[in-house]
């Protein structure tokens, strides 16, 4: 990739976002509102005050985890659609440890709960990894199926065994397992559940970046992702690499529970995550499977997600869903293979123009 290509690679998601906002503007016009006014509200409500910013960061935190999970797997040549199921398993284990080992002090319990989340997600993701490595079962199918199982399983566990009376969530985790909110040091953020998990998310991005590009493990995983035949020839164990990549990806997804269970609600709730696992795919896509890109993309989707609430008074909340969808479509449309195709078309029409 030469410099121009690289620049284009960075620029094109930005352009895609801009284009999406333009098209979104048309939708706002159709509804009968002024796009500039709505967008003004959207940005001032989210980025215009400390609380808004905190909310954006809070919404972005789980998206960083899932986006990073999908991006990491993708670098290793795996399409992990199962972040949703992995995060449920991880979050449940986090909560379980949190409300079971109530007598442990915080400095032990907090790391233990975090580790539990990672292990829950990792084990759940390792199963499709093993199925792929040993039996050749395609991970797209198996991870989707594992999502259903994870949802049903956690629902069952909560409903039948661990729910607090009259609710669809578990009992609360120990106080010592709770992660402080940032509003405890920045009073301006009060009301926002933004908590220290955001730093864990940023740390995860750094670690993943380091693993992928600075270690021999990363060299192997990326090699398998780019050309498994050559990787095999180079003595890389494809089966091991597949299972490991899935497990690490699942561990990242499993960290979503840290934000929700340990930093926000303090319990595990049935179906708590909404579509965060699936949004991770969009985040990875927009972030070009790059850890820094993932952070930026997660921030954008975090902004849209909280912004939807802000502009709800003027336009239906669905508008924001539409906006998100348009962003995703534009991002795909600006991806490299698609761009190359466009270039070819353009060349052809230009050439025709010259002739005629």
């Amino acid at each position, binding site marked *: *990739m*030469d410099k*121009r290509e690289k620049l284009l690679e960075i620029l094109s998601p930005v352009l895609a976002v801009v284009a999406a906002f333009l098209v979104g503007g048309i939708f706002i016009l159709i509804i009968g509102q002024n796009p500039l006014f709505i967008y003004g509200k959207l940005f001032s409500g989210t980025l215009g005050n400390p609380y808004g910013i905190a909310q954006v960061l809070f919404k972005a935190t789980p998206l960083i985890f899932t986006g990073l999970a999908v991006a990491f797997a993708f670098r290793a040549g795996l399409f992990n659609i199962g972040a949703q199921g992995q995060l449920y398993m991880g979050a449940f284990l986090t909560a379980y440890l949190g409300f079971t080992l109530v007598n442990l002090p915080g400095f032990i319990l907090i790391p233990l709960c975090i580790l539990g989340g990672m292990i829950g997600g990792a084990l759940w993701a390792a199963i499709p990894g093993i199925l792929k490595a040993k039996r050749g079962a395609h991970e797209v199918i198996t991870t989707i199926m594992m999502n259903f199982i994870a949802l049903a399983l956690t629902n069952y566990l909560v409903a039948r065994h661990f729910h607090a009376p009259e609710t669809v969530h578990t009992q609360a985790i120990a106080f010592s397992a709770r992660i402080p909110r940032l509003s405890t040091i920045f009073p301006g953020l009060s009301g926002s559940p933004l908590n220290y998990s955001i730093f864990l998310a940023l740390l995860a991005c750094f670690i993943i970046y380091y693993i992928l590009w*600075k*270690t*021999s*493990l990363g*060299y*192997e995983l990326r*090699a398998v992702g*780019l*050309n498994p*035949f*050559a*990787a*095999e*020839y*180079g*003595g*890389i*164990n494809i089966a091991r690499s597949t299972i490991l990549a899935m497990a690490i990806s699942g561990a990242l997804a499993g960290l979503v529970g840290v934000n929700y269970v340990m930093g926000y609600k303090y319990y595990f709730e049935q179906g708590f995550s909404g579509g965060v696992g699936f949004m991770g795919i969009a985040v990875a896509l927009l972030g070009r499977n790059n850890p820094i890109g993932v952070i930026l993309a997660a921030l954008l989707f975090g902004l849209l997600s909280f912004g939807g609430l802000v502009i709800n008074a003027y336009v239906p909340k669905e508008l924001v869903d539409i906006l998100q969808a348009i962003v995703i479509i534009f991002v795909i449309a600006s991806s490299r293979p698609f761009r190359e195709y466009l270039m070819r078309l353009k*060349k*052809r029409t230009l*050439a*025709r123009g*010259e*002739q005629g």
Partner: protein
Amino acid sequence: MVREIAIEMRGITKRFPRVVANDNVDFGVYKGEIHALVGENGAGKSTLMKILYGLYQKDSGQIFIRGREMDISSPSVAISQGIGMVHQHFMLIPPLTVAENVVLGQEPRKGKIFNDTKKAIQDVERLSKKYGLKVDAQAKVQDLSVGLEQRVEIIKVLYRGAEILILDEPTAVLTPQEVEELFNIMRSLKEEGKTIIFITHKLKEVMEISDWVTVMRDGKVAGIVETKKTTKEELAKMMVGREVLLRVEKNPPQIRGVVLEVKDLEAVNDRGLSALRGVSFKIRAGEILGIAGVEGNGQTELIEALTGLRRLIRGKVTLWGKDITNASARKILESRIAHIPEDRHKRGLILDYSVENNLILGSHYRPPMTKGPRLNFKKISENALELIKRFDIRPADKEIQVNSLSGGNQQKTIVARELSRHPQLLIASQPTRGVDIGAIEFIHRKILEERDKGEAVLLVSAELSEVMSLSDRILVMYEGKIVGEVEPKKTSESDLGLMMAGAKSSDQVIRQSGDREFPDTPIS
């Protein structure tokens, strides 16, 4: 006699971000001739032809077709002018039949809506018969051999009314027999008055089939000569810009102990069919053991089995007496067996990795290339700089993606990496496929150097002359078995060819040849 000019390209220039691929190129072809276009990897041959076919747009210059200036803005313009191109990578749809592929996009119609399949089949059969192409119009493309697929591409081009055919390295993927058949087809096309532009790296083929030759070097035309007035040596010199050794000079081998011994190897291919049926042989230090055979007779599977990429069902492999049967690819690398794979894009390189990263594939996981879990970037870069220099990889840029190197330099990258393992056994499979004569000479010299250093070399090549000139001994493989062993000095290419086709055993060859000196006395 005034000859009609089919094509004239004047002052063609084409720039890419990094290079000037065509620099003021003049190129002309008479009607009814076979015109060879030769030059080193990256000389600009394909670019020139893609401009002629409308795939690329020239930056400047003029193109005349049958004397009329044309603006070839797209392949459809080229096709309407009777120009057809057969690319090196075929563009056929495997599940469709030959006839369906040929008429694709221009299907004969019955009424307005329905395709006239019968007419399509008839048309294809007619073309096939006329030029001796011998293709079954109703066979599915996926069931055809590479050689036959290529003929389908040729029929496709003819079906679209091509008078001028561009064949870009058509012989690179063919076996010697298939090359002969292709040449017969080309001759019959020529008799019908068609014009053919033929790109190849093999000067033997140029001498055999072409009427005129244009030689390109570094994006420029280095010479235009009539084939019968030139020699391989002269062409080679024009291409490379210096004297090239077309024959390998070889010291007598200094043979020592047995390095590798294989016994009764059995394995299946990807489709689960038996591919190795009891293969046994030994390779000794200081010798090059060649394996000759028509592709698809088990050579690929044999090499994969020896390098940990395919499981053996039966048999035993020992390296210096130590059992390495079914050892993992990593174990094999660690026992200092190096492997130049037959397909450099599939196995040999990670095209999206930089040169320096490709140069550590296989040693990327241990010191000195790592420091703990971390890659040792200083060592990686030193390693790359040294190998780039020693093996003359161009451009000398360790961070460039291997993708953007020409074929010859990609191959050099692999050779550099494999030889940097200081192997005791080098397995080289099709080591010079698709690379230019300069690179061939270089790679041959390197392989011989390894042998003279006392390594054992196993050489597999579909290129008969390569096996003949490099090997100290040759095993012939046929249908998953070793059917004979010959000494290159005492065998002719044609005998070897017959053995490869399964027609003769080595006993017969040796008995009949006695101690006569060859080469090339056919035995009837």
